């Protein structure tokens, strides 16, 4: 009980904020992966128009979101 009260009194609001940021970045990560898959599928439907450029942009967004997620998890 005492420990619980101690935790309540010393509750760090900002760690709560970090949790929500990580959840948001996780959703973004999943979303950017969906974009990668979708770009792949769409460039298969119609190929030869900016195929490589679009795939590169989609992968860059995905990789960037991974980097930001890991950075936030470890150093934020």
């Amino acid at each position, binding site marked *: 009980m005492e420990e619980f009260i101690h935790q309540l009194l010393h509750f760090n609001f900002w760690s709560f904020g970090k949790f929500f*940021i990580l959840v948001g970045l996780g959703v973004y990560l999943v979303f950017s992966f969906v974009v990668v898959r979708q770009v792949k599928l769409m460039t298969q439907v*119609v190929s030869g128009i900016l195929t490589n450029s679009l795939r590169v942009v989609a992968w860059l967004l995905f990789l960037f979101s991974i980097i930001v997620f890991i950075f936030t998890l470890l150093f934020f």
Partner: protein
Amino acid sequence: MSELYSAKSATRTEKAEPAEKPNKKRDFLPDHQGCSLSSLWVLPSKAVRFETQEPEEEILMILRAHWVTNILWFLLATILFFAPFLLRFFPLLDSFPVRFQLMFVVVWYMVLAMYVFERFLSWFFNLTLITDERIIDVDFLNLTTKKVSDADIDKIQDVSFTNAGAVGAIFNYGDVLVQTAAEIVEFIFEKVPNPAGVANVLQRLRTEEKIEAIEGRVR
């Protein structure tokens, strides 16, 4: 009547062994050539292909919504791009620790980048292909849903077009409505440039198909 019968029987025999289609110069195609980012791309390079394309099938036109239709989201994205700079004048985030302020800016630009990319993809992949045999409508409804439908040119029953609104009249874009006897009875090419020209091309291709059917050059 006998002519009609002979034409039909010729069609049947040709269907068994497809005839070589002569390389035609289609003078009814618009002069404007375009490129991969154009709303109207006439006779794209041979490198451009679609999933269900037959070996002899030739893409005549690729259509997308007119570039003007992108201006609204582009302006919005530009405003959102500069929005974090306003924080210098309106210190809304000053009560947050510096790391949270930094994270806010990073997340802001990540979301903005995704918004811009998604809107671009939505415009880029919502396209219509007109080949010498078919019309193919590719709809990129959202990031998880796509719809591809096609109809043979000879199944087209009616082609009409509209130039709606002041902007449409100024930039000459509008909707082309194609009614067919195929499974998908109605195709709408939304906000495409030069709708009258597109409707004309479809009508001419339809006539071309009819002539080919009479001459027995149906694939």
